């Protein structure tokens, strides 16, 4: 087996170190080049991976001999898609900062690369302990990014975020050690050993809750979402993009990889509760998004609603639900990064994100308004955009679980369209005349990012098959543990 995945991880860690030694003036360009190399390197794996549900690029080193801890990584279809998403978004996120002033930028980009390294690790780790290390490691750089480059109140908000998520992770650690102690013979953290455990229903319930809380906080699922709107609003745009675009996928990925197959019994027992919480989250967050006046905060709440639908889909344990979740994770990642970037562009020009203070921008900014519209339509799941395929599959899955649930879950599409289109109207349309002096036309870097995102929105919306094909056998593998 080729060791390309290991090289990719090493390269990302090296990128982080290289960035520290760059000069602040060159850090932007250097970071962009490094991240594009990362992306191209992981993209070439497209041609090597086959759609048979097998695990590719397996590497396995002994890390701590006495405790059976291994450095074991590998990719199947699910991991592969998320790794691609991460490595595709990071260059975009770095590129989106090109037109902005970022103080002490080498540290900023170094932290982004550390984050990228940890995220790739989370999505590929096949050893429980390693998974935990990467999971926690992802928290440290994002904490510093959100705090040091964040808004006025960032000390308090980010510390809350940190402790909130850490409490979940530590519970997960307890669960992992518990599982480890159940493995027969010489204990091991290997994921396959976890899959093969025969736990009784009490043990399964215990493990379910320790893991579920960690994942639910990360996503976040109602009522554990209270850290999210403040953190998203206060963080620097790049931090918000990392959080919403990639980091919340850690939670969903965790459920798919580490929860469903490990405790299938408890899944059946508790899925009703999980789905109800997710659906409450959808309706609740959509309603709050309706009344938000701050555009960035509105996207933050819409993100809770979208994630609620994804998690409801995952917990239905149907092939449609999981496939939809896989697909929607990607499209949500792309769309939300686009939306937050638009919010950043608006704030950069107008110095405000309040919907009632904006308006009339479309009169002078044709390109911007078209690109904004495309990304927004992706987010409200219009057919032929990427959001549609994901939400359609998810709702099919939820419908199989229960028609009423699907009805409530479906409200995300309707309400989403309401608040998204209304905000578009408030920001872009109207008689106000915004002169090009105030709203300077898009810089090339900004235009490039938005165009790439718009192309992906439509491209994957029209032709989704390759992505779904990659995920399908692996998703079936996961579900085979259930039945």
């Amino acid at each position, binding site marked *: 087996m080729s060791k390309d995945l290991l090289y990719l991880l090493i390269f990302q860690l090296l990128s982080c170190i290289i960035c520290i030694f760059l000069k602040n003036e060159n850090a932007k360009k250097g970071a962009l080049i490094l991240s594009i190399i990362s992306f191209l390197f992981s993209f070439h794996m497209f041609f090597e991976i086959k759609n048979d549900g097998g695990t590719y690029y397996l590497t396995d080193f002994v*890390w*701590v*001999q*006495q*405790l059976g801890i291994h450095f074991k990584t590998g990719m199947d279809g699910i991991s592969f898609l998320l790794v691609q998403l991460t490595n595709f978004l990071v260059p975009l996120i770095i590129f989106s900062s090109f037109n902005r002033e970022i103080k002490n930028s080498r540290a900023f980009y170094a932290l982004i690369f550390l984050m990228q390294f940890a995220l790739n690790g989370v999505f590929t780790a096949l050893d429980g302990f390693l998974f*935990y*290390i990467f999971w*926690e*490691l992802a928290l*440290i750089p994002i904490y510093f990014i959100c*705090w*040091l480059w964040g808004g006025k109140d960032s*000390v308090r908000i980010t*510390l809350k975020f*940190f*402790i909130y998520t*850490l*409490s979940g992770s*530590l*519970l997960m*650690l*307890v669960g992992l*050690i*518990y599982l*480890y*102690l159940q493995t027969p013979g010489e204990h091991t953290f290997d994921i396959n050993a976890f899959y093969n455990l025969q736990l009784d229903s009490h043990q399964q319930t215990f493990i379910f809750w320790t893991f579920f809380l960690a994942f639910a906080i990360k996503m976040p699922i109602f009522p554990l979402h209270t850290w999210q709107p403040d953190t998203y609003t206060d963080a620097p745009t790049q931090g918000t993009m990392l959080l919403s675009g990639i980091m919340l996928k850690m939670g969903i990925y965790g459920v798919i990889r580490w929860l469903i197959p490990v405790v299938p019994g408890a899944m059946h027992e508790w899925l009703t509760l999980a789905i109800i919480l997710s659906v409450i989250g959808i309706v609740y967050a959509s309603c709050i998004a309706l009344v938000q006046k701050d555009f960035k905060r509105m996207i933050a709440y819409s993100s809770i609603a979208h994630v609620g639908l994804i998690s409801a889909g995952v917990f239905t344990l149907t092939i449609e639900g999981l496939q939809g979740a896989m697909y929607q994770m990607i499209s949500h990642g792309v769309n939300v990064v686009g939306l937050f970037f638009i919010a950043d562009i608006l704030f950069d020009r107008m110095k405000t994100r309040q919907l009632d203070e904006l308006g009339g921008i479309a009169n002078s900014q044709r390109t911007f308004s078209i690109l904004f519209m495309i990304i927004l339509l992706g987010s409200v799941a219009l057919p032929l955009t990427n959001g549609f395929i994901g939400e359609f599959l998810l709702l099919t899955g939820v419908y199989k679980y229960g028609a009423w649930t699907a009805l409530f879950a479906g409200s995300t599409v309707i309400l989403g369209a309401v608040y998204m289109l209304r905000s578009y109207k408030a920001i872009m349309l109207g008689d106000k005349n915004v002169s090009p002096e105030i709203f300077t036309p898009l810089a090339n870097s900004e235009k490039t990012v938005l165009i790439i995102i718009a192309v992906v929105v439509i491209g994957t919306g029209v032709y989704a098959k390759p992505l779904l094909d990659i995920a399908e056998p692996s998703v079936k593998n996961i579900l085979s543990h259930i039945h």
Partner: protein
Amino acid sequence: MNVLLTISGLGILSMLAEMLKFKKQLFILVLAGLIGALILSFIDWNTGFSYYHDMMLVDNYAIAFSGLLIVIAFLWFLMSRSYFTSETSAADHYALILFSLAGGIVMVSFADLTMFFIGLEILSVSLYVLAGSDKLNIKSNESALKYFMMGAFATGFLLFGIALIYGVCGTFNLREIAIYAGQNSENLPVIFYAGIILMLVGLLFKVSAVPFHFWAPDVYDGAPTVVTAYMATIVKTAAFAAFYRLFSTCFSSVADWWTPLIAIISAITMLLGNILAVYQTSLKRMLAYSSIAHAGYILMAVASLNQTSSGAILLYATAYSLASIGIFTVLHVVSSSTGDESISGLKGFSKSHPFASVLISILILSMAGIPPVAGFFAKYYIFYAALKSDLTWLVLIAVLSSLIGVYYYFRVIIAMYQPDGKENKNFSFEGINFLVLLLTGILSLAIGIAPGFLIGLL
């Protein structure tokens, strides 16, 4: 055994230094002696000799902890360089520290209760003096007096406990007590249990566990910073090593009776230590309370009492001591030049000393138990030991108190990196102090990434 002789010899040599006028060379001499002692200690690896009519047993447990004590002492001497140059009675300080280190070595390798007691006293008496070594400072005097009173009090309990145990078993030897208790575990007299309780009280005093922790904050706060660092690291490590050695050998046959007690004390200690630390504004007092909390974590390993426990204590003591030495170094430098011991005194530190700030952050993350630093792995290992003994509730409390810990540890990092902090050029942070920070930071990271070596020891 050579280790004990080497270190005692070094102590005597230091006393002669003043008279024979080689005070200047003493520092190098002591450092070289400590390296020699470290090498000598590991020569005895896997031999398990016993000395002095079975009063000391140099098994791997003893060697591992002696090694740790010597390494920490080495780092400590590096950080306290200025303590020895600015004082008139420097040579005495060298001697006192080395003797107390010798006491620590005895405490980790005793095989007999009398030896245990002698070791403890050698360690403590030197420290009573050192706590008051800042003679003109009233807080230092208070600290010394308090430490002495409390220490003497604890010793009384301990001695009484030893006497009761002797009364039942008719021997001081650990192995023979263990055999006696094992054979008569059904019908041990009440005074045997009373003996255990009294010894437990004495030891809990020494490791500053709740409810016997009251002396710790004041003593730590009043003593000169370097002496506080010594107390928080070496004394604690030696006390825990002795604690576990005593209870795991002598009283393992009645473990069902005392482990729940320690588990409860551990839970209260962790929670209370961490909660009280939150309210401190002085960095030194915060570290004092955090050291109480850390004692709670280590007690978890004692309460688990399985094959993992000794390794967990070693790993935790290592991680904690390394981080403490590093942070105390910073406190020492900052407070001796600005007189400010508060957390906000570190404001602007990241602007004037960017690299040092990164190292301090690593040490703080280690104390808070965030991967991939040593403190995380140590905490993981303790959790693992506890879950192995089915102490799930205790682990959940430990999780909770770790979260509280993060809250106040991060205040240090926040203070250093706060954007509104002005550059602070009042103190220079270079040379030997920086070296200590670098060593502790690198070691903490290395142990966190490759803990296999330390785990393999015990």
